[in-house]
């Protein structure tokens, strides 16, 4: 019996380690490979707690195993009545005291990091972005810069960026696992949190609070670029001219259609307070269409023609005149040519797919 048991065990162990190793998950999405300040602090506490937990679990497992193996009812001694032990004070004190100590060991660093992460001392001197969660997309408003973007949040590497997070409708939660833990976007108050990316990259963001049918599709990105590139990007974004005519005819027609179909009522290009729908400035450099689809023209056309099939319950569906495929293609062409900056996801190392 023990023969095949042993083999089974090794097999299990092997597959387990295989899973765990491959299981750090996707780089730039996983929380297990932190590349930002908040994520790193969380990781420290995680590691500390896992060490404590593993130790305690091993102790429990050992006592458990010995008890079950050694004190099984013996054949032929079914009538044996063990001694009826009432308790043992020393033991009971030991297994009360040790967990208390362990809890303290975990609690103190936890409290220190809680206050560390809530520190807003540098908020005034840092970049500030107003983050608004909307049913199924994120809006970013760079304070004092007149820059508005949606879905892609550009930040400089190695700098604290303070986010003032709020919601325009239901509760959402802003989460970029590799960079930082999450913070809720509430409708009635502003939560402030800072993020700091250590490395350049395009990091996945997720909405972590149930917010309706398309909650699972409310992805966004943090694009961390070097300070120089960031400055460049800010400069470019400030100089966007929303009226600018595209070069080629198709795109130009697209622009007219964009206006004719009332898209402007919800979508701004350039810095404009309109925020019913995502700001479409610099659309050519978007990491994704509607947050989740690959940034191709076909996907964009699909979106414009039938957003409902892509994001159920989104707030664009049904609020604009029907567009034909031909029209949609033209609009897409126009949007795909909105290239307002040379700093783009590629500058941060590209979207990892």
């Amino acid at each position, binding site marked *: 019996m023990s023969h095949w048991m042993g083999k089974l065990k090794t097999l299990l162990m092997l597959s387990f380690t295989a*899973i*765990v190793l*491959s*299981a750090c*998950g*996707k780089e730039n*999405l*996983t*929380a297990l490979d932190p590349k930002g300040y*908040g994520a790193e602090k*969380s990781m420290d*506490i*995680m590691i500390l*707690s896992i060490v404590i*937990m593993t130790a*305690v*679990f091993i102790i429990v497992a050992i006592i*458990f195993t010995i008890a*079950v193996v050694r*004190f*099984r*009812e013996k054949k032929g001694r079914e009538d044996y*009545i063990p001694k*009826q*032990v*009432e*308790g043992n004070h020393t033991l*009971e004190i030991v*297994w*009360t005291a040790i*967990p*208390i100590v362990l*809890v303290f060991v*975990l*609690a103190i660093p*936890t409290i220190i990091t*809680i206050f560390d992460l*809530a520190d807003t001392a540098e908020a005034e001197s840092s970049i500030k972005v107003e983050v608004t969660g909307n049913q199924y997309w994120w809006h970013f408003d760079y304070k004092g810069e007149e820059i508005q973007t949606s879905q892609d949040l550009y930040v400089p590497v190695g700098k604290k960026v303070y986010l003032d997070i709020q919601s325009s*409708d*239901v*509760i959402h*939660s802003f989460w970029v*696992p590799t960079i*930082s*833990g*999450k913070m809720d976007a*509430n*409708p*009635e108050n502003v*939560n402030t949190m800072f993020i700091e990316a250590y490395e350049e990259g395009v990091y*996945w963001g997720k*909405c*972590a609070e*149930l917010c*309706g*049918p*398309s909650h*699972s599709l409310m992805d966004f990105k943090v694009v961390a670029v070097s300070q120089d590139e960031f400055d460049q990007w800010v400069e470019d974004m400030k100089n966007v001219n929303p009226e600018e005519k595209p070069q080629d005819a198709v795109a130009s027609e697209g622009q007219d259609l964009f206006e004719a179909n009332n898209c402007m009522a919800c979508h701004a290009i350039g810095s404009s307070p309109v925020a019913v729908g995502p700001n479409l400035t610099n659309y050519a450099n978007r990491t994704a269409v509607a947050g989740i689809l690959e940034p191709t023209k076909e996907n964009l056309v699909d979106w414009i023609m039938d957003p409902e099939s892509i994001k*159920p*319950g989104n707030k664009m569906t049904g609020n604009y005149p029907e567009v034909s495929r031909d029209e949609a293609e033209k609009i897409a062409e126009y949007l795909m040519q909105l290239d307002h900056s040379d700093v783009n996801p590629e500058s941060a190392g590209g979207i990892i797919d």
Partner: protein
Amino acid sequence: MSIASTQKKGFGAILWDYLTTVDHKKIGNMYLAAGAFFFLLGGIEALIIRIQLIKPENDFISAGLYNEMITMHGTTMIFFAATPMLLGFMNGVMPLQIGARDVAFPFLNSLGFWLFLLGGILMNLSWFFGGAPDAGWTGYTPLSTSSPGHGLDYYVMGLQLSGAGTLMGGINFLVTIVTMRGPGMTYMRMPLFTWTTFVTSILILFAFPALTVGLFLLQFDRMFGSAFFDVALGGNSVIWQHLFWIFGHPEVYILILPAFGIFSEIIPTFSKKRLFGYSSMVFATFLIAFLGFMVWAHHMFTVGLGPVANSIFAVGTMAIAVPTGIKIFNWLATMWGGSIKINSAMLWALGFIPSFTIGGMTGVMLGASTADFQYHDTYFVIAHFHYVIVGGVVFGILAGLHYWWPKFFGKVLNETMGKIAFWLFFIGFHLTFFIQHFLGLMGMPRRYWVFLENQGLDTGNLISTIGAFFMAAGSIVFIINIIYTTAKGEKAANDPWGTGRTLEWAISSPAPEYNFKQLPLVRGLDPYWIEKMDGNTKMTPAEPLDDIHMPNGSILPVIISIGFFIASFGFIYQVDNKSWLIVLFAGMVIAIGSMLIRSLKDDHGHHIHKEDLEKEAD
């Protein structure tokens, strides 16, 4: 069994008997049956969830339906499966354990059950009337106030009904334990399951009102235009979260404490050894309950309550590890030096210890607020609470079912099938939920209808889904076992395990209507064991044989509950059309009218006569 059942009854008579019964054992069985039904329902919903997540971007069910599915899965499992099944055990076992003939409020007991059942049915009817609630079992505002359709209205009314029922149960058990302990049954001689029933009832008493208030506010906002959660009129959505979790966290201890009680009965019985550290077990139970009220905001670490609040609640949360640890180690010490017999009931108990310990530890990890910024609302949390709930509560329920089945139904469940069911379920359970810890940390938030391709989440989700089917297989084997045992099983002895320690094993299986012909004299902890060790086969009676006073059955609880059930529809639909107010009033008239009848009509109960009792065998 009792006098009445010696004659064969027709189906109608049996049905009437159950509709009108105020017998705590029958009510207990009904709680178990209804809870099991809802467990299967919730389980099927779980399977649908897992099928949807079997591969990336699956479209097995639509996004809206998925949200309904998780909401109904969570709500059904917590409120209509786990809680009632545990109430079933309390009803069926606790009065026997303290040597009582009945509970303090038999009528209220029945009313509580029917309110729960109709609440559960009401909520599930939403599937057929335009869609189930879809804001998660936590129903966070303003998503829940703005959710279109009537799903959330069903959620409010269903929970309100069943919550009222549960509250009645809690008060009933408290009074029963305080006033109806038999001769010699002092507090510190009460079996642990009775203790946990007591403490759980206190938790119910103090936790459910917060939910009631929260639901009222939600109901008023949705149905009568108030502005508690309407930000434009100064409302505040965080109030709901606080009220929900002031209830919600104690609720998880309402689930786990009775399960702890069950294990504290089973482990000594099958280790043939008294429970190690009885008094510290009692103390730990109280401490868990007390701390349980002081930690609710650990569900709200990311809400933005500020570092001070987060620190306080983090420390409070971690502190619960201490009393729970005391319990774990006491169980281990009980087995240590014992003579452990491993049958199905014990197997579930043994499976519980490591599984729950893992779940508890991830709980403490979640309590470390800084780390929770990463865990929160991901599959790590899903993994945590299924480890404690399935590995703790469901294992506890299954252990209890195997253990007390003979006492409830007079037959011993089949051992072979019991073991097969355990192993299938146990393996499936770890397969499903262990991997979810990693899924969460790899960036998979919870309540996700789909996960995207190429995010490294495929394998984990596949394994998880496979595990769920193992659990389903285990459940099916258990169902077959029940059917088989009912049809073919042998009649059980009073003390089928031979090592029973508490009073319920001193009487016949199933227990007679009046429980104890003569109330037994309790001489210490584990009274039946004491008598057996002294060579007695029976408890010493503490009173001469006499007439036994019994409460009368009544159909009113059913009618009252139906009245409120009807009124609920009035509440729900008067939003669309004011003429539904008629239904509301009609329902209320039925309910309140029946309550009046109940209070104005004297009901002194009846007696079972001494002469009839003498005819009955022991």
